[in-house]
């Protein structure tokens, strides 16, 4: 009896682990995309939900007119990046110039998300769309099954994650972005163009979110209203990883996805969101700065 229970546990574990890691790579990328704007600017960029949708939508349109998948994926990422950048130029930058507080950015970003999503729904319909026709090829790894779409999604997310980490750690732009996150005032005083760097962070964020949206859409399809859920999960990853780090957010996204897969395998997929947000509420009540956040000296103004 004990052996049977152990076998069932291992079976669930292998399957959940495989799915968790593949979905986790995408969720890590989503969290990192959100954090790329949040950490340097403090803005809750809910408009990223539009980038999540617009990239697969552009790819879907391209596929319908017979363009190859790599080309339409590139166009999708470009479109997502431009949308995110536009939101900064037409909304957040003017609000910063007016000295608007952060909740005003949040509400206007929510408004932009609604406008973008509804425009896309009006143009392309709100029904679920798929990027790949037919049944996908799958492989057995031990007791787990992994599909080609899952592999492509995880691989593309990992490549972008790695690229971003290399950019952040080795390039001058990465150093400037980290400096922007740490102390934007000092960065401006040292002669850096903070507005330009903010635009770069919005563009990069949109590009990463687009890749995540494309990866998910290639695996399970997409609809025009799925963006906010993706952004909410990204926020959960940011809160769990702590508000002060790019890399811990990515790690938290990975762990969150693995945890969600375990819950789905041992309990039920329909309670996934309840468990996720319940856990988030618990973490926030116990440790408001985030589960893995560094303990910082309390500022006099807080």
């Amino acid at each position, binding site marked *: 009896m004990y052996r049977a229970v152990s076998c069932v546990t291992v079976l669930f574990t292998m399957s959940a682990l495989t799915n968790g890691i593949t979905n986790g790579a995408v969720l890590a990328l989503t969290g990192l995309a959100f954090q790329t704007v949040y950490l340097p600017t403090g803005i*809750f960029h809910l408009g990223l939900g539009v980038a999540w949708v617009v990239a697969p939508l552009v790819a879907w349109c391209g596929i319908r007119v017979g363009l190859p998948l790599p080309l339409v994926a590139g166009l999708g990422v470009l479109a997502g990046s431009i949308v995110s950048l536009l939101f900064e130029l037409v909304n957040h930058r003017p609000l910063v110039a007016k000295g608007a507080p952060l*909740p005003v950015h*949040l*509400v*206007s970003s929510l408004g932009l998300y609604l406008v973008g999503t509804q425009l896309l729904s009006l143009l392309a319909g*709100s029904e679920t769309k798929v990027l790949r026709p037919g049944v996908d090829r799958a492989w057995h790894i031990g007791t787990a099954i992994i599909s080609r779409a899952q592999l492509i999604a995880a691989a593309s997310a990992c490549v972008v994650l790695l690229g971003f980490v290399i950019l952040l750690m080795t390039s001058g732009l990465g150093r400037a972005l980290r400096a922007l996150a740490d102390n934007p005032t000092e960065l401006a005083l040292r002669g850096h163009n903070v507005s330009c760097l903010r635009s770069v962070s919005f563009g990069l964020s949109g590009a990463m979110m687009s890749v995540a949206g494309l990866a998910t859409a290639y695996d399970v399809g997409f609809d025009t209203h799925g963006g906010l859920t993706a952004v*909410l999960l990204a926020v959960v990853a940011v809160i769990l990883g702590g508000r002060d780090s790019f890399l811990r957010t990515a790690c938290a996204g990975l762990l969150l996805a693995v945890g969600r897969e375990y819950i789905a395998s041992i309990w039920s997929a329909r309670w996934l969101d309840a468990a996720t*947000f319940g856990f988030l509420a618990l973490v926030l009540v116990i440790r408001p700065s985030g589960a893995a956040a560094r303990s910082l000296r309390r500022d006099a103004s807080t």
Partner: protein
Amino acid sequence: MNYILHHAVYLAVYVLLASGLNLTVGYCGVLTMAHASFFGIGAYTYAILALSWTSELLPTMVLAVGLAVLTSAGVALLAVRMRGDFFAMASLGFQSLVYCLVHNWSASDAPIGSWRNLTNGPFGIAGIPRPTVLGYRVTSPADFALLSLTTCVLVLIGVRVILQAPWAQLLRALRDDELAARALGIGAGRSKAEAIAISAALAAIAGVLQAAYLGFVDASVASLDQSILLLCMVVVGGTGNWKGPLIGALVLLFIPELLRFVELPTSVAAELRLLLYGLSLVALMHRRPQGLAGVYRLE
């Protein structure tokens, strides 16, 4: 005539909801996105009680308010622990949690309203009995309009009395400078919890009225879209006084009616309505952050 009465009921429901949200956003400075969850709790409480116990409005309303106030402790706990847009996101998480519970709490082999099938999941609860008020059964649209508007006016008078009391000054002090207010000995946590509880109670009353009027309730009453609509009403109308929510509810209920006369297909009209809500949020944040008739700017 029925058209006007129908909209009078809806206006009363949404004025109650927006006034409740105004109390937390406009007077307390707490930007919550979980208001629809209390609306849902009120609506489902009436639906379940009316099916299994009594459709008498007063006891069901009291129980719905009690349950919403209890649940509001969760949001209050979050409000005490964090501020600003992080609280807004946390409340969004709370909203998603409640929606997920309402949307999934079902079992096909159990009766509706039982512990295993409390909300009947995505199918909602239909055939909710009409309410009775002190033995008088409310059935016609005119009766419902009278009931809703009377409840709305009575509740708003109550809210106005509360807002003229010293307690409201205390809330404003917390909103404008929490650190200074706390230094003066004001209990920030308790005051915020009280404001959120009153706000939740108003939402629950609105939920009871809506469920009793429609005779049907589903998970959409507690959805994120509903919370966004309520936030739009408060932001568009304005916060920090009693007029803002009234104007916000009037404007945002008027937009879909305007689209009805353009004779657009239903699905297009729904998308267009949300698009207009989004545009109004962006435009007001840029041009008039305190809303059309409000006095408080989000901070």
